[in-house]
C-alpha cells in the first residue's frame, strides 16, 4: 500500500474525530463525567426508594406518606406505621400540633371509601362519625388533607362530592364546613397570612380560584388582579416577613402579591418566560419558605427537582445556595411532590425518596 493511501486514511480518521467534537451533544443534564464525579453514595432506608407525597413534623418526629403507607422517624430510623386494617392504603397525611391524621382508602364488598383517622401511639382510630367520609365517585376517590406551612393548628379537607364538584372543610380540633355550595375546583394548597388563610383551588383544565377564610367561616373568593386565573395553580405560600403571598403555576410561572390580602398580584408573573430546567419547561408545584443560613428563601417544587429564590429576588433559579452541584443529584431528575421546612432544613419529598438539604457550615443535600 502506498504511503499516500495510509496518510489519507489517517486524515479521514482525524477529520472524523475533529468533526465529531462539534457534532457531540447531550441535551439532558450537566455532563456524564461531571455527574459521575459529583455523585455521592446515597444511604438506603425504608423510604429511600418510595415516592414521598407528603412530609410533616409532629412533636419531635417526622412523618411521611410514602407510597401507600405512613412512616415515622423519631430521629433514629424510619418505621412503618401499620394501616388501621390490613389492605388499607394511605392517601393523605396531615397534622395538628403533635397529632397525626391520615386518610385511608378501604374497600368493602367491592366499594371504595376514604376515611380520616388519627394516630394514637402506633394504632389508628377513626376521627369521628361527623368527619366526612367519601365513597368512590366515577370509580375514583378524593378526600385529601391540606396542611399549612408554619401553622400546625389547622388543616383543610378537600372533599370530592360529585363529578367535577368539591366542598371544603377545616379541622382545628373541631370540624368546620367552609363551603355553602359545591365548587368546581379542588383545593390543592393553603397558606396563612396574619389571621387569614388562603386556599388555592384549581383544576387541571386551567381554572383557578383563590379563597380566603379565617379557618372556621365559609370561604370567600378573592378578586385578584394581575394573576391569570386561567392558569393551573401548583401551590401557594406566604412570605410572613414581608407580608406577601406567592403562587406557582403548572406552566412554569411564579406570581407574587404586593399585599397580604392576595388581591394585587402586580402586572404579571415575576418571570417573564416560563422557568426551565435541563429537561425543558418546569411544572411548578408546592412551595415553602425557609430560613437558610440566615437568609429567607422561597423553595418551589418542580417536576425535575426544585427552584430557590432569595425573598428579595425576582427570579427563581435552580439551587446553588441550598445544594451544591444540584444538577448532579438524582433529585434534579425527580418530581418533587412535597416540601417541609424548618430553620436551615428543607425536607423534599420526591418520586424517589425523601431528601434533606441542611445547612451546617455549608449546604448538604442527602437522602433520608
Amino acid at each position: 500500500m502506498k504511503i499516500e493511501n495510509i496518510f489519507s486514511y489517517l486524515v479521514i480518521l482525524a477529520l472524523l474525530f475533529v468533526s465529531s467534537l462539534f457534532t457531540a451533544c447531550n441535551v439532558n443534564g450537566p455532563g456524564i463525567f461531571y455527574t459521575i464525579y459529583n455523585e455521592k453514595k446515597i444511604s438506603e432506608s425504608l423510604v429511600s426508594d418510595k415516592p414521598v407525597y407528603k412530609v410533616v413534623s409532629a412533636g419531635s418526629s417526622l412523618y411521611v406518606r410514602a407510597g401507600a403507607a405512613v412512616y415515622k422517624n423519631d430521629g433514629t430510623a424510619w418505621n412503618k406505621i401499620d394501616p388501621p386494617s390490613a389492605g388499607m392504603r394511605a392517601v393523605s397525611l396531615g397534622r395538628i400540633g403533635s397529632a397525626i391524621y391520615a386518610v385511608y382508602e378501604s374497600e368493602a364488598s367491592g366499594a371504595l371509601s376514604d376515611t380520616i383517622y388519627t394516630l394514637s401511639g402506633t394504632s389508628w382510630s377513626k376521627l369521628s362519625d361527623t368527619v366526612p367520609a367519601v365513597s368512590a365517585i366515577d370509580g375514583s376517590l378524593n378526600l385529601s388533607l391540606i396542611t399549612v406551612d408554619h401553622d400546625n393548628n389547622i388543616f383543610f379537607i378537600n372533599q370530592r362530592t360529585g363529578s367535577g364538584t368539591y366542598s371544603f372543610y377545616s379541622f382545628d380540633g373541631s370540624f368546620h364546613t367552609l363551603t355553602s355550595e359545591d365548587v368546581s375546583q379542588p383545593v390543592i394548597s393553603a397558606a396563612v397570612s396574619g389571621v387569614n388563610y388562603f386556599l388555592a383551588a384549581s383544576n387541571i383544565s386551567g381554572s383557578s380560584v383563590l379563597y380566603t377564610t379565617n379557618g372556621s367561616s365559609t370561604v370567600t373568593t378573592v378578586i385578584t388582579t394581575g394573576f391569570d386565573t386561567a392558569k393551573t395553580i401548583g401551590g401557594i405560600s406566604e412570605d410572613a416577613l414581608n407580608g406577601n403571598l406567592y403562587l406557582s403555576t403548572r406552566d412554569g410561572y411564579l406570581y407574587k402579591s404586593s399585599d397580604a390580602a392576595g388581591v394585587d398580584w402586580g402586572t404579571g408573573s415575576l418571570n417573564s418566560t416560563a422557568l426551565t430546567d435541563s429537561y425543558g419547561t418546569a411544572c411548578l408545584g408546592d412551595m415553602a419558605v425557609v430560613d437558610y443560613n440566615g437568609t429567607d428563601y422561597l423553595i418551589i417544587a418542580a417536576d425535575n427537582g426544585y427552584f430557590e429564590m432569595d425573598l428579595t429576588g425576582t427570579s427563581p433559579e435552580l439551587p446553588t445556595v441550598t445544594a451544591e452541584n444540584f444538577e448532579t443529584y438524582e433529585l434534579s431528575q425527580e418530581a418533587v411532590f412535597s416540601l417541609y421546612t424548618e430553620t436551615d432544613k428543607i425536607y423534599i419529598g420526591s418520586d424517589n425518596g425523601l431528601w434533606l438539604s441542611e445547612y451546617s457550615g455549608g449546604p448538604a443535600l442527602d437522602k433520608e
Partner: protein
Amino acid sequence: MKKILFLLLLLTILSLPVFAQIDSSGEYVSPYSKGSQTFTMNGGLFIPLFFYFPALSPSVESTKDHLSLGGTGSLEWSMFISDRISLGIELAGTFSFTPNMNTHVLIPLTGKIAYVFPVGSFEIPVFFGTGLAVNKVANQVYFGTILKPGASVYWNMNLRWGFGLTAQYWIVPEVYFGDKSDNTSFGNFMDIGFSARYHF
C-alpha cells in the same frame, strides 16, 4: 509439581513453531497479504482511570470511589492493505457502576489502523482507533468522539486462529460550549482482555 508440569507444557506449546512465520532461510514470512481479513472478539476488564476537567481546579480527578471496575467486549473486522498494515472497524461496549449503582455505558464504533510486528510465533499489533461513542449514565446520553490507542500480543495457534491479550487506552472527550463549558471533561479508561482472532 503440577505447577512445574503446567509451565513446561505451556513453554513447549508456545515454543512450537506450529505455523512458523520464519522460512528455511530465516526470513520472516507474513501470514497476511493484501486482502487478508480477520475477525476478532475481545472480552475483559474495563478499568476507569481518571477524569480530566480543563476548566476546574484541580483538573485531574481520580475515578476511585466514583466508578467501579467494569467489563468490556468488542467485535472487530479488519482487512490487510499490506502484509503488515490493516484497516478495520470495531464495535465495542463497556459497563461500570457509579456509587449508587447507576450503570455507566460506553458504546464506541471506531475505525482502526494497525501495524503488525511479528516476533516468532507471536504477533504484536499496535493500533489506533477513533470514531463515535454513545456515553450514557442514568438518563443522560452524550454522543461524542473517542480515541483508542492500544496493542495486542497474539500467539498463532494455527493459520486460522490466534489468541492473545489486548490492552487499549480510552480517551473519551465530553466537550460542551456556552453555559456548560466548565463541565467539559475527558474520561480516561483502560481495558485489558483476552482476544480471539480468526484469519481468512
